[in-house]
C-alpha cells in the first residue's frame, strides 16, 4: 500500500503539540534557568594548546580572587575522576587510552578542560579564570589522519604505540552475505573510484549544555541538558563509583540535541566532583564558544570508495575504506558511528559483493561522536554520489541507473549484502511521486536549453534515493557489534482512579514531540481522550527505566513498548469488566474505551468505570490485584527502514560561484504516520541540517589545531534567508517489523539531502569538466571548480575558513 490513507482515531491526526504552551510563553525549565539555595557557579579553564604537556599550574592567585570558593585541577581529581566512558569497543583490540574529564598531565585538543573554579557568582568564577597560570610544553599537533597512521608519526597519546584506535572490517564473501569482493573487482567491466571528504560538523543544538548537581545524602541529584538521562545515570555511577541507586538524573526541558547531548561529558563529571567536594549544589553552563570547541563534533571521515559494474549498468561490487577521525578521545559511542554506516553504504541497491574497512584514528582535535544520522549520512552520501559518477562514466541517466539496481517492491523482505533484512519498501512509488512533484522532465528540458544558450546561471538536478536503518536497535544485533548496552525501550501505563492516564516512557525528548505522539497512541489503544493522557519522561526517579532518545528510536521502539503496555492494561481491564458484567471474559469486547458483552446491548462499562472499580477494589475477581497498571519492555527484532526519494534543483551562477536551491522535493516513506505535522517538522529540520553540510557548515582547524570556526560568526548555521521552502510528501509502506507499522523520521532529512544537493551542483558543473566538489560547496569552491586548474595554486593558499590549505591538511586529500 502506498496511498496516504484517511484515518479515524488519534493515530494519523496532525494534532497540535502538547509541548508548546510553556515553550511559547517562556515558562521553561532549561537547566540554566534553575537556581537552588547555596548553589555555587563553575567556570572551566580550557587549553589554548592542541597538544602539550602540562608542566605546572598555579592556582593560588585565582583562589584569592573575590567570591572564589575553590579551584581544582586534574591533579586534584586524578584519583577520583575515572575515565569518561566509551560504551562501544568496536573491536576486541580497540585502543582506548582513557579520557580524563580534567586533563592531568597532558592536553590533547584545544578546549580540553584544565581547571575548574567554583565561585559565589558566575562572573566571579569567570573573572578568576585569567588568574590561573598554566605552563605548557608544546607537543606537535596531529591533524592529518593519513599522516597520523604512518609509521613514526607523532603520537597523540604517549601510552599508545599508534594513532590507530581500531580497524573494523566486513567482507561479504567472508561473512557469507555475498560474493568475494576481490572477484568483483577483478571481473569488473567498469570501475569508478572516488575519494569523498565528510567534513567535520558541529551538532550546534541551540541550548548550550548545562548541568546542576545537588549532593543528596550520600548520592547526587543531577539536572542536565542531556538526551540520555538513563544512560547517564548508569555511566556516572560506573565512572565515579557512586552506587547507581544513589544517582538520580533529570533531563528537564532540553533544547535540542541531534546526537550532541548523548555522551557523558567532562563537564557533568567535573560538576559532580565539585558538588561532592563542597557538599553544595554546583552549576556549570557552557558558553557557545566553549560548546563549539569542546562539545563533540560529527562526521569527519575520508571515504575511499570503488564501485564496479557491468557495462550495462548492473552493479557488481562496492569497496569502501574509511578513515574516521575520533579526535583526541573516544566518546560514548564515537567508534560505533562509522560502524553503523558500514551497513548503509550499499543503500537500496542489489550489490552482490561488498567490503568495508574502517580505521579509527586519533588526532589532536575535538572528539567526535554521534551527530544526526550518525554514520548513515556519511554512507548515504558516498553511495548516492558514486552512483551519479558511475552513471556519468556509463553515459546513463542517473535515475535509470538507480532503477536498474534498486530492490523492487516485490522483492521485499530482502537481505542485502551487508546482512540486513529490509522488511518493506517501495522505492518506485516514492520516486514516481517525487519526479511528478518536481516537474523533473520540464526541468531537464530547461537545463538543456540553458546549457545550449550558455546561460551564465546554470541549472543542476540532483537525486538521492536512500534508505536508513532506524529504530535502534535489536539488542542481539548490538551485542554482535560489541555495543555495551541493549536497544530495548520501556513503558509503564497507569489508569488513575478518575480514568485519566499516565504514560511513563524511557524515551527522553528534547524537541521531538513525544508527549503529543505518545498521547495519540495511548488515546487510541485505550480509547481515552488525547487530553486525558499525561506522558512522563526524562527523570530516572519517575521514569526509572529506559534507553533514551537517539537513532530515530523513540517511536519505532518506545512507541511499541507503549502499545504493549496498553494491551496489557486492556487485558486486565477486560478481566475485571467480565467480572463486573457477570459475563465470560471471552464474550467481552473492547472498542473505543468501552467494554461490552457480545449479544447483550446495554451491558457495558467504560475504562474509567473499571479504573474506579479497581481503585475502590470492593468487588474484583479473585486473585486480581487492585491496580490498572502495566509495564512493558520492547526489544525490536529488526531495525526499521525508512526510505525516500529526494530531488534538488539548484541554480549555479557561474560568474560568482553562488549556488542557490531553486526547488527541493522529497517524498519520504516513514511507514504509518502517527502525527503528520510532527513528521513534516522533523523532515524540514533534517533537510536544513543536511543541506547545511552540503553548502554552509564546516568545523575548520588550522595547522596548529585551533578551531578557527569557533563562534557562530564562522560556524555558519543557515538562517531562514539561506533556505528555500521545501515540498515534502509521503508514501506509506508500513513496516512489517512492528505492530504500528512505523519506521521513525528523526534523521531522514539529514541523511538524504546532502547528496541530493551535491549531485545537483556536480550535475550543473559536469559540462565544465567537474566531477566532484568539496563540501561545503561555498561560492569560492564552486567558482574555482568552474575555472579549473589555472586557479589551483590560489586554492591552495585560500582562506582556511573555506577550505584552503589548512582544511586540506587537516582532513587529508584535496578536491
Amino acid at each position, binding site marked *: 500500500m502506498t496511498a496516504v490513507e484517511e484515518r479515524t482515531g488519534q493515530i494519523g491526526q496532525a494534532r497540535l503539540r502538547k509541548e508548546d504552551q510553556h515553550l511559547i510563553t517562556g515558562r521553561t525549565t532549561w537547566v540554566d534557568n534553575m537556581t537552588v539555595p547555596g548553589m555555587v557557579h563553575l567556570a572551566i579553564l580550557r587549553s589554548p594548546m592542541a597538544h602539550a604537556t602540562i608542566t605546572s599550574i598555579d592556582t593560588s592567585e585565582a583562589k584569592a580572587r573575590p567570591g572564589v570558593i575553590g579551584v581544582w585541577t586534574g591533579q586534584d581529581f586524578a584519583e577520583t575522576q575515572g575515565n569518561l566512558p566509551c560504551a562501544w569497543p568496536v573491536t576486541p583490540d580497540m585502543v582506548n587510552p582513557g579520557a580524563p574529564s580534567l586533563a592531568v598531565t597532558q592536553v590533547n585538543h584545544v578546549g580540553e578542560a584544565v581547571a575548574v573554579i567554583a565561585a559565589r557568582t558566575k562572573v566571579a568564577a569567570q573573572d578568576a579564570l585569567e588568574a590561573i597560570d598554566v605552563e605548557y610544553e608544546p607537543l606537535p599537533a596531529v591533524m592529518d589522519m593519513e599522516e597520523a597512521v604512518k609509521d613514526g608519526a607523532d603520537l597523540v597519546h604517549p601510552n599508545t604505540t599508534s594513532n590507530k584506535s581500531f580497524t573494523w572490517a566486513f567482507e561479504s564473501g567472508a561473512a557469507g552475505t555475498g560474493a568475494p569482493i576481490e572477484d568483483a573487482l577483478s571481473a569488473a567491466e567498469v570501475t569508478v573510484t572516488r575519494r569523498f571528504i565528510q567534513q567535520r560538523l558541529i551538532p550546534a543544538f541551540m541550548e548550550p549544555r548545562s548541568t546542576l548537581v545537588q549532593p543528596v545524602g550520600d548520592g547526587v541529584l543531577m539536572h542536565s541538558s542531556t538526551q540520555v538521562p538513563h544512560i547517564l545515570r548508569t555511566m556516572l555511577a560506573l565512572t565515579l563509583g557512586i552506587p547507581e541507586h544513589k544517582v538520580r538524573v533529570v533531563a528537564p526541558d532540553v533544547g535540542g540535541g541531534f546526537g550532541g547531548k548523548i555522551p557523558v561529558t567532562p563537564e557533568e563529571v567535573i560538576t559532580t566532583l565539585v558538588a561532592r567536594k563542597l557538599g553544595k549544589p554546583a552549576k556549570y553552563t557552557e558558553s557557545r564558544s566553549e560548546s563549539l570547541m569542546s562539545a563533540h563534533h560529527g562526521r569527519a571521515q575520508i571515504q575511499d570508495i570503488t564501485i564496479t559494474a557491468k557495462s550495462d549498468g548492473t552493479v557488481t561490487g562496492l569497496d569502501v575504506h574509511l578513515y574516521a577521525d575520533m579526535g583526541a578521545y573516544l566518546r560514548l559511542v564515537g567508534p560505533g558511528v562509522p560502524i553503523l554506516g558500514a551497513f548503509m553504504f550499499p543503500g537500496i541497491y542489489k550489490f552482490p559483493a561488498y567490503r568495508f574497512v574502517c580505521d579509527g584514528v586519533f588526532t589532536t582535535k575535538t572528539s567526535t561522536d554521534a551527530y544526526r544520522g550518525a554514520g548513515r549520512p556519511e554512507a548515504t552520501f558516498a553511495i548516492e554520489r558514486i552512483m551519479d559518477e558511475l552513471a556519468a562514466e556509463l553515459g546513463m541517466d542517473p535515475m535509470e541507473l538507480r532503477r536498474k539496481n534498486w530492490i523492487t517492491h516485490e522483492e521485499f523482505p530482502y537481505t542485502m549484502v551487508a546482512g540486513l533484512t529490509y522488511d518493506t519498501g517501495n522505492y518506485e512509488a516514492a520516486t514516481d511521486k517525487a519526479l511528478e512533484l518536481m516537474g523533473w522532465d520540464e526541468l531537464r528540458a530547461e537545463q538543456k536549453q540553458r546549457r545550449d544558450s550558455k546561460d551564465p546561471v546554470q541549472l543542476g538536478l540532483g537525486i538521492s534515493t536512500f534508505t536508513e536503518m532506524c529504530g535502534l536497535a535489536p539488542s542481539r544485533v548490538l551485542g554482535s557489534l560489541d555495543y555495551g548496552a541493549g536497544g530495548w525501550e520501556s513503558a509503564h501505563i497507569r489508569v488513575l482512579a478518575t480514568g485519566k492516564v499516565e504514560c511513563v516512557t524511557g524515551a527522553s525528548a528534547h524537541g521531538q514531540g513525544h508527549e503529543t505522539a505518545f498521547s495519540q497512541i495511548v488515546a487510541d489503544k485505550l480509547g481515552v481522550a488525547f487530553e486525558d493522557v499525561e506522558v512522563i519522561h526524562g527523570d530516572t526517579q519517575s521514569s526509572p527505566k529506559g534507553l533514551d532518545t537517539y537513532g530515530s528510536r523513540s517511536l519505532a521502539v518506545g512507541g511499541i513498548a507503549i502499545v504493549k503496555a496498553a494491551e496489557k492494561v486492556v487485558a486486565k481491564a477486560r478481566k475485571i469488566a467480565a467480572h463486573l458484567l457477570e459475563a465470560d471474559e471471552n464474550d467481552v469486547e473492547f472498542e473505543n474505551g468501552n467494554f461490552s458483552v457480545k449479544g447483550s446491548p446495554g451491558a457495558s462499562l467504560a475504562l474509567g468505570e473499571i479504573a474506579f472499580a479497581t481503585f475502590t477494589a470492593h468487588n474484583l475477581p479473585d486473585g486480581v490485584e487492585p491496580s490498572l497498571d502495566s509495564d512493558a519492555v520492547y526489544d525490536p527484532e529488526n531495525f526499521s527502514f525508512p526510505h525516500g526519494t529526494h530531488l534538488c534543483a539548484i541554480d549555479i551562477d557561474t560568474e560568482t560561484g553562488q549556488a542557490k536551491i531553486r526547488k527541493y522535493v522529497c517524498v519520504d516513506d516513514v511507514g504509518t504516520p502517527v502525527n503528520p505535522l510532527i513528521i513534516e517538522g522533523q523532515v*524540514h529540520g533534517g533537510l536544513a541540517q543536511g543541506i547545511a553540510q552540503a553548502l554552509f557548515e564546516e568545523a575548520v582547524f588550522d595547522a596548529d589545531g585551533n578551531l578557527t570556526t569557533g563562534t557562530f560568526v564562522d560556524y555558519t548555521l543557515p538562517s531562514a534567508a539561506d533556505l528555500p521552502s521545501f515540498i515534502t510528501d509521503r508514501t506509506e509502506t508500513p513496516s512489517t517489523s512492528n505492530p504500528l507499522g512505523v519506521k521513525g523520521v528523526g534523521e531522514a532529512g539529514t541523511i538524504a539531502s546532502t547528496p541530493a544537493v551535491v549531485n545537483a551542483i556536480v550535475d550543473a558543473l559536469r559540462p565544465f569538466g567537474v566531477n566532484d566538489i568539496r563540501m561545503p560547496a561555498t561560492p569560492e569552491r564552486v567558482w574555482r571548480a568552474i575555472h579549473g586548474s589555472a586557479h589551483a595554486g590560489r586554492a591552495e593558499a585560500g582562506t582556511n575558513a573555506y577550505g584552503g590549505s589548512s582544511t586540506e591538511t587537516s582532513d587529508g586529500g584535496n578536491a
Partner: protein
Amino acid sequence: MTKINVTVDGTKYADEVEPRTLLVHYLREQVGKVGTVVGCDTSNCGACTVDLDGKSVKSCSVLAVQADGCEVTTIEGLQAQDGTLHPMQQAFHEHHGLQCGYCTPGMIMACRDLLKNNPDPSEAEIREGIEGNLCRCTGYQNIVKAVQAAAKAGVSA
C-alpha cells in the same frame, strides 16, 4: 554598581547593576525573567531578543545600564492578563513553528517586530527579516508559515 530603573513586562524595578552587566543577564539573574535565554556569545543567534522601548533588540548586545528608564517586554509579557496568547504565540503553536523551543522566545519577539514594521511581508521579506535569529530544529519553514498566518490575521503589534 549603578542604579537603574527599568519597567519589565509592566512591572517597575529599581536595581543596582555592575556597569558591565548585559541586559540579558540582568533580566535572567536579577529580574528572574528566565524565559529569555542565551544561545551564543557573539550576538548571532537572537535567542535573547526582547523589546526595548518598542524596538526589537538582542539583549546580549545591550548593557543593563542602557535600559535605565526604559520599558522592556519579554516573551513572558506577551500573554494578555486573562492568559490569552499573543497572536504570534498562537500562530507558532498552530503551525508547528517550534520543536525544542529554545530559540522560540527570541524568534517570536523578532517575528512580532517584523510585522510591526511590515504588516504584509512576502516570504522573502520574512526570511530576510528573521535572519538574525537562528533555529536548529525547524528548518524555518513552519516559522515562516506562522508569520504568514499572523500577518493574514492582521497582527501588527
